[in-house]
């Protein structure tokens, strides 16, 4: 019933988590980041891959989630789950307010507007010290807890992050295979044609942008709980660059690309650590190598095995 293309990545993620759990807490931390980024990139993929729009400002929503959860939990004693949900709602509203005017812009204007958004939130997180404690960062964020049960160890949290990442992918895939998802694909393909078929482009883009913001916000909250500490750098430009690398490497516009990319970009530098000063060169070389031989990303490679059958390009 469930196709191997779905089962295989799930199985691989579970096996990888198992290996991580057996390899000690450092590996667990690295994988935990990978799964948090999976969630972030799955949202980004919604807006950039499925809808074909560019946003350089998703880190802003991760910051809202991260700082919101940190403040609500550490200062006001909220539980992580209600904080996660409330900050997602706040991020969603922020995305609506920001997206409504900017999504009417096209192409690089939209990209620039979103980039500015990321920078503004970054500046706020530095300057508004009474709220964010500036460069000092915010510490003492409690670990995740679910239904009153605190996930005290990183190992427990890793399993929770895996489940949440898979859940996020499930939701995104379900949304995509629908009338709404088709409308997004239409916009990515040809706005002129989409419009001529009665698709409300501004509205669809706005919804996709909000969805991406919800994912980013959740990723930010989860980061705060997983690490217990956040600072402005966490949600800076690096986050944007990192997530783009993941998205393109894993395969933009594919279901599993965000996860594949997030895992590889997270693990690769660790695996290359032994090379010492050659590390950065080797890392870059491998990324370029992948992009040359799999220009549609690693997830796109699975279509090689599926040749001959109904070649649904986007379903890798």
């Amino acid at each position, binding site marked *: 019933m469930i196709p191997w293309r779905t089962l295989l990545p799930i199985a691989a993620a579970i096996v990888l988590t198992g290996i991580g759990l057996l390899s000690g807490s450092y590996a667990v931390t690295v994988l935990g980041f990978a799964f948090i980024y999976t969630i972030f990139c799955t949202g980004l993929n919604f807006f950039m891959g499925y809808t074909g729009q560019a946003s350089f400002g998703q880190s802003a929503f991760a910051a809202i989630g991260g700082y919101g959860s940190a403040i609500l939990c550490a200062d006001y004693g909220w539980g992580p789950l209600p904080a996660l949900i409330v900050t997602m709602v706040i991020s969603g509203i922020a995305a609506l307010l920001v997206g409504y005017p900017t999504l009417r812009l096209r192409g690089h204007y939209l990209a620039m507007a979103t980039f500015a958004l990321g920078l503004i939130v970054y500046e706020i997180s530095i300057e508004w010290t009474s709220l964010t404690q500036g460069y000092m960062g915010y510490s003492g964020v409690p670990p995740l807890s679910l239904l009153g049960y605190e996930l005290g160890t990183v190992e427990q949290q890793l399993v929770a992050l895996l489940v949440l990442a898979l859940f996020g992918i499930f*939701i995104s895939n379900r949304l995509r295979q629908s009338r709404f998802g088709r409308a997004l694909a239409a916009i990515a*393909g040809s706005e002129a044609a989409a419009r*001529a*078929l009665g698709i409300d482009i501004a509205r669809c883009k706005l919804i996709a942008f909000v969805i991406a913001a919800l994912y980013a916000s959740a990723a930010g909250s989860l980061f705060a709980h997983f690490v217990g500490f956040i600072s402005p750098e966490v949600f800076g430009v690096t986050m944007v660059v990192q997530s783009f690398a993941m998205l393109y490497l894993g395969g933009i516009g594919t279901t599993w690309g965000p996860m594949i990319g997030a895992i590889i970009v997270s693990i690769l530098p660790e695996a290359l650590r032994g090379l010492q000063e050659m590390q950065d060169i080797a890392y870059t070389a491998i990324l370029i190598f992948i992009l040359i031989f799999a220009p549609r990303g690693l997830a796109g490679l699975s279509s090689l095995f599926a040749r001959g059958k109904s070649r649904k390009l986007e379903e890798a």
Partner: protein
Amino acid sequence: MALLSVQNETKRFGGLLANDAISFDVKEGELLAVIGPNGAGKTTLFNVISGFFPPTTGSIHFDGRDITGASPHRVASSGLIRTYQLVQLFKQLTVLENVEIGSHRVTEGGVFSALLRPPSMRRQEEEVRATARELLRFVGLEKQADMPADSLPYGRQRLLEVARALAAKPRLLLLDEPAAGLNMQETAALAEVIRRIHAGGTTVILIEHDMSLVMQIAQRIVVLDFGRKIAEGTPDEIKAHPDVIAAYLGGTETLDA
């Protein structure tokens, strides 16, 4: 009452009068052709009718409602569907997926129904797919259903665009030079497709340079030249119309059909 009524429609681009006080009506179930030399303002007329440009002056009524200046997706939602002179396909998607997207106007559901997938939604999805396959059969593309749209030869891409427009169950279908770039067999096949769309009760406005196609299938013809309507009538009337003959003799095209 007319299904579409264009009244005194003028469209100015800076100093250029692309459409100059054009008026005509289209009755429900009619097949009207719009002809005229290159640059006469035919595509501009379509753009104005379908909401892509607001007219400078004048009005457009569709199904008794004033749609002047309404946004394209609203006009399309009300059942007025246009195709493009230069094909606009969703190139990365398969042929079948292209047609499925066409069903947007006649289906329902947003984010929540996508997540919850109630039985009605699943039924709708099955219908969307079945209708898409049926339409591909209708235009003779059923064998290419799973190919990427941009891998089709140009003539077939045009047919795909027509099939996609039909998935929206148009009440009025605007076809902008659907035969451009087609060879003789393809044009003949297209003529048959248009005839059957019309026979099925859909009102059609056709812009076309291929005169033999126009004279064969159009019930009435509107002729534009330099943005103005210079003639309107049956194919026989148009062939004999002195202004039309003059307009075409002045240009490179002929009315031989």
